[in-house]
């Protein structure tokens, strides 16, 4: 498989007429005393034919971002511009009409829960096309068969219900459902989390092929960085509702600018114990927190502080103020006051040997060898 679609640059520069532009987006969920700010000042552009990986942990706002872009959540501030239309400003009928156009489609994590268990595959895939209201019966039929073909399924699954097909097939059906309306942008919310390794890779490869053959833009929400690295052009890292890092996938993973990106990489399971940094080098231990001056510790946990400061091993006085998402290189952005310093500090933490734990590479190998007898 080729790295990118022929004729498309490896990473489309986001400044040339993006398909989707999210600008200064704030999202607040809940009202009154329950109100929580889920997204803060999110700026993001997705170019045509681009695959963007959106990573971050539970509660980082990945899913809320996807839902806001799809018009399922109204932003408190900022806007979402899709194909030149400010879709976040659309109301009622206009918004419904935009949604029914089906140019922007969502694929959900768990197809067993997101697909109606009593509908047949045929009905599920046809539903979006029927709602568009443009196609006659024969055209709907043609679109269904085409969409299933695009995900590598044949007509034999048409009369089955989601419960009667395998997990991998189900996720393909939910992708086919999205493809049937001939979308321009596919937002896949954890499309592979529920699948085993082989099926996971199959679905990701399929998405890359769809990008190449249909020129789709695809946003993949995932917490599996390693497999994202296999197919994405760009990776956007969210932490507690803010983008902390954004850039071409090869550059970000070769040299992360933000310690949280490094933490995600260090935490990813690996068959070999060959990571340079361990999660313990990148997060502040309880003991270390106890050694910090009380005023500083309070500042780092305060509402204005950098979102990652409560966990960051390298947080300093400057980090009591949220850093802006600033340009870091040609196509990269990062929000870290200490982006030029933390890597050296992390290496120092390992070298000083103050963290006696088996997750450190050398100790890990010793422990393993010891147990093998």
């Amino acid at each position, binding site marked *: 498989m080729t790295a990118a679609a022929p004729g498309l640059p490896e990473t489309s520069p986001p400044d040339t007429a993006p398909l989707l532009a999210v600008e200064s987006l704030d999202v607040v969920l809940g009202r009154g005393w329950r109100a929580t700010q889920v997204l803060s000042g999110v700026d993001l552009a997705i170019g045509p034919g681009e695959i963007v990986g959106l990573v971050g*942990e*539970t509660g980082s706002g990945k899913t809320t971002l996807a839902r806001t872009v799809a018009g399922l959540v109204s932003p408190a501030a900022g806007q979402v511009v899709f194909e030149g239309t400010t879709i976040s400003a659309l109301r009622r009928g206009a918004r419904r009409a935009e949604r029914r156009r089906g140019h922007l489609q969502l694929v959900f994590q768990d197809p067993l829960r997101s697909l109606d268990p009593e509908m047949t595959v045929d009905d599920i895939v046809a539903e979006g096309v029927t709602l568009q209201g443009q196609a006659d019966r024969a055209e709907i039929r043609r679109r269904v068969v085409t969409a299933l073909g695009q995900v590598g399924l044949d007509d034999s699954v048409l009369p089955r219900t989601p419960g009667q097909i395998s997990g991998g097939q189900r996720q393909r059906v939910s992708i086919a459902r999205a493809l049937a309306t001939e979308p321009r942008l596919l937002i896949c919310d954890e499309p592979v989390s529920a699948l085993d390794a082989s099926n996971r*890779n199959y679905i990701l490869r399929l998405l890359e092929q769809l990008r190449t053959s249909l020129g789709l833009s695809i946003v993949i929400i995932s917490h599996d960085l390693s497999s994202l*690295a296999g*197919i994405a052009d760009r990776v956007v890292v969210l932490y507690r509702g803010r983008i902390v890092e954004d850039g071409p996938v090869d550059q970000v993973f070769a040299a992360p600018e933000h310690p949280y990106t490094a933490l995600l990489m260090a935490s990813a399971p690996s*068959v070999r114990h060959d990571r340079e940094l361990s999660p313990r080098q990148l997060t502040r231990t309880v003991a270390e927190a106890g050694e910090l001056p009380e005023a500083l510790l309070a500042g780092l946990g305060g509402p204005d502080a950098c979102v990652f400061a409560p966990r960051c091993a390298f947080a300093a006085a400057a980090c009591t103020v949220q850093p802006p998402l600033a340009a870091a290189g040609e196509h990269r952005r990062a929000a870290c006051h200490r982006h030029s310093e933390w890597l050296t500090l992390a290496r120092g933490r390992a070298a000083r040997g103050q963290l006696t734990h088996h997750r450190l590479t050398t100790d890990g190998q010793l422990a393993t060898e010891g147990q093998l007898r």
Partner: protein
Amino acid sequence: MTIDNLKSPDLAAPGLPPTAGAAPDTVSRPAPGTSDLLSLDDLHISVHHGAATAIRGVSLGIRRGEIVGLVGESGSGKTLTCRAALGVLPAGCTIDHGSMTFAGHDLTTLSRRGWEEVHGSHMGAVFQDPASYLNPTITVGHQLAEVLRVKLGLSRRAAHQRSVELLSAVGLHQPEHVFHQIPAELSGGMLQRVMIAIAISCDPELLVADEATTALDVTIQAEIIDLLRRLRDERGLAVLFVSHDLAVVAELCDRVVVFYAGEVVESGPAAEIIERPRHPYTRALLEVASVGDFRRRELRVIAGQPPPVGADITGCRFAGRCPVAADACRTGPIAPVTVGDQHEVRCVRAQEAWSTGELAAR
């Protein structure tokens, strides 16, 4: 078997001494590696009331203080094997043949009362979705203390004190505060820690962790893996760790057992399996696993689908998907062969030289 039988000295003082407060790591345990704590031998399990055989001749052993990983695709029989070992097979599933022993005691003939004694006191278990195992309306501390009061007969006060110690032992900060919280107030990672605290509350010798980290974020998964490793080091806890991700298993386990379509196809020391996989299926699993590689690369898939549960296949069950299958693979049952120290492979071509090279190049 009676309960007293199980409490033989061989089982090494279950539970805590009545004087709570003694550090759990001081409980004397026999040295790890002396004999198998849990041993399954030639286990056959049928499902759907005998309509299909899902587990065919599974044998595996786990020693005290050892972490053994069971790995394989969904439907390969890992979970069923665990549930058999825990004595909680779903309805319609029966053990047709084979033996299961725990510290020398037969588990297959154990009565309901006998299992009650084993659960918690000798075996603990954690599963994929911690929230679904806790009562959402009761504080987690109460649910933990309840176990201690019922199983160990501790007083209210002692159970509370011991619960807080356990919550702290599984790495929860502010355990006193967590004690009074209900499940909805805790994150998935914290809930899984609470489940582990409950599972180890009566100081079992074995912890069964079935996909216990699968639903968690990678950062939390790494922390739980760390915790399991620490519990083994501090308490001599043996862990049977089930996962479909070979990378996670490789991170944690001493030994790996690879399941395919209800059979063990390869087992051996983790480092050996990762560096020198001998079964084509293990090799395929390694190729699709998250190798911790952050470069753009071709994502591999294992071609084909596993056979349906109970399929009657002569010879190797993987032959239909195997890139190196030969005629000899389809003629008769394949017996496991020993290819190294504790390293067994169920493959007729295991001794041939196809297995290295390609993987090392990655």
